[in-house]
């Protein structure tokens, strides 16, 4: 249970957008409605809650995402996201000679909220295809299980800086969760985006 509560504390900031006003009087807004396409990639950290063979978990992995957002004239934006998010790898040895990994391919709807001109939050939700590979050095069983997890999602806080001609570079702190696998990781992808 302590792990679960720790994760809830980590989720706490993600609730902040819920209490944000939908509009404000900033001179920066309203902007013209436009689309933004982005690609992001970076390392992630898996919050290890695996109880059997949890000692063999490699928590540092990688993830990358692609996202298309429609930004309204106000603060809200909507979009879709996909990508590849590796949750964990397990490399056991001796009597625990298990090899396993779990990755998710999300297909999520995204709701975004601009907080300032450069800072934004996203909440994404929807199904993911989970890819669970497992094998053992001592037992004959090589498995690639493909499982749909219907209620996955992410919370993210991002910062972006305009480069030139609609091109932006930024960084996101992105908390991904999968309900089917009961897994959670925190990614730190670099984001390259283009407004069009």
């Amino acid at each position, binding site marked *: 249970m302590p792990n679960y509560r720790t994760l809830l504390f980590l989720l706490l900031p993600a609730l902040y957008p819920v*209490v944000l006003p939908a509009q404000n009087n900033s001179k920066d807004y309203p902007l013209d409605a436009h689309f933004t396409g982005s690609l992001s990639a970076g390392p992630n950290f898996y919050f290890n*809650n695996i109880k059997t063979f949890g000692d063999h978990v490699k928590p540092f992995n990688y993830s990358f995402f692609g996202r298309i957002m429609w930004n309204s004239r106000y603060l809200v934006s909507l979009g879709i996201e996909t990508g590849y998010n590796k949750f964990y790898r397990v490399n056991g040895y001796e009597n625990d000679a298990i090899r*396993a990994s*779990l990755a998710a391919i999300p297909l999520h709807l995204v709701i975004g909220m601009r907080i300032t001109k450069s800072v934004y939050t996203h909440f994404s939700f929807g199904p993911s295809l989970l890819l*669970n590979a497992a094998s053992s050095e001592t*037992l004959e069983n090589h498995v690639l*299980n493909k499982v749909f997890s219907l209620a996955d999602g992410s919370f993210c806080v991002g910062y972006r800086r305009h480069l030139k001609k609609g091109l932006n570079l930024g960084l996101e702190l992105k908390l991904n969760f999968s309900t*089917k696998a009961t897994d959670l990781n925190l990614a730190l992808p670099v984001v390259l985006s283009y407004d069009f």
Partner: protein
Amino acid sequence: MNQRYLLFPFLWALLLAACIKDRFDPLPAFDTSNLEGTVPLDTVYRSSFEGIYELSEGDNSFGEQFACKWANGYLCLFGAKDGRFINVQVGFRTSDSSIRMAGFWRDPIQPQQGQVQLTIAKTEGVDSVWGHNGRGIVLRGYLENDPGKTIVLRFKRPFSAAVLNRAFVIAAHRGGGRNSDNLPYAENSLDLVKHVAQFGATGIEIDIRLTKDKVPIIYHDPDINTRLTLKSPLVGDIHQFNADFLSAYIRLVDGQRIPTLDEMLTTLIDSTTIQNVWLDCKDGGESGFFDHVVPVLQKAMGYAQTRNRNVSLLLGLPSEEAYDAFIAFPGHQQLPSLCELGLEQAKHAGSRVFAPRWTLGILEAETTEAHAQNIRVVTWTLDDPGGMNEVITKSRYDGILTNYPSMLAYAFYSQE
């Protein structure tokens, strides 16, 4: 403070309240000081204790009345309230001619349990025990609660003729109950079925699935999940894994391994007094399912005979697919089976038990017809005390499947 900011802690509190159960409290080790200086009670005197007791003093959190039965060497008292029960070991202390008891109590739903110590003083019923008669027995003692309470139970009456003359199966779902309740051990596990008689059960239902290498295992869901197993690196369809792989890398929520059907039946025969076993063929519709399950069943039936164990092992047919596969299996009429689909299908399959869902109501005409064909009727899965009482008193069903066998035990044994 702006009111909308109140949402912030409120939402977090909602998340916190959504905690899932992640621990199991096994049956407790209990204080045996009350048994010091005692000798085990001869088994011939056990029946003296059985019957209905009433609460005359003390905490009524178990209700005002108890039904008392022996199981697994424990004297089991099933309370009228919420299925709470007491299990005590019993000894005779020669120094003061008293009968001493020590054990534990447990709630089948809420995560509560505690210690119990009871005594029958020489002048309060010991002679009745030697006379094979419960009249006059008074159980006095201590029941650890919040706070600890003294308790006095008085023998009220023996079981009624309605109880003694009816072969009624108190069947425990998933080997004893669901993980979401206050089970001491994981559902469908070996440790659970070893103790389920102490919770009141005289029968069990367990679930069979096939592994990738076609070994029948005891497991309810089609996938590996944290409801049934400790979080592991494996996710997804359990049919993708060989039995030895699951044995090596998957643990049930309380740390036990997933048992094979063979291990489960051997344990049932060797380590329990359970007489009715409903083998729910969850994967019964899979090609070749019965080719792999029937040999294990037949081996167990042969083993039970060599051990002189009277146990009925029934292949449960829960779906049309399982039923069709069973009907297509050569010699199925000679195999003991239980059919959930309907009485006609049960007759056609040669089933010994017809098992209608309780929501169908009391099927009086079907029961008459089934009994005429020597087919027993067991309804499932009934967890409501009112519903249990209705089925017991208004139907001629031969058993009920429940997640709370202690609740059903009280409902059945306390009949007037």
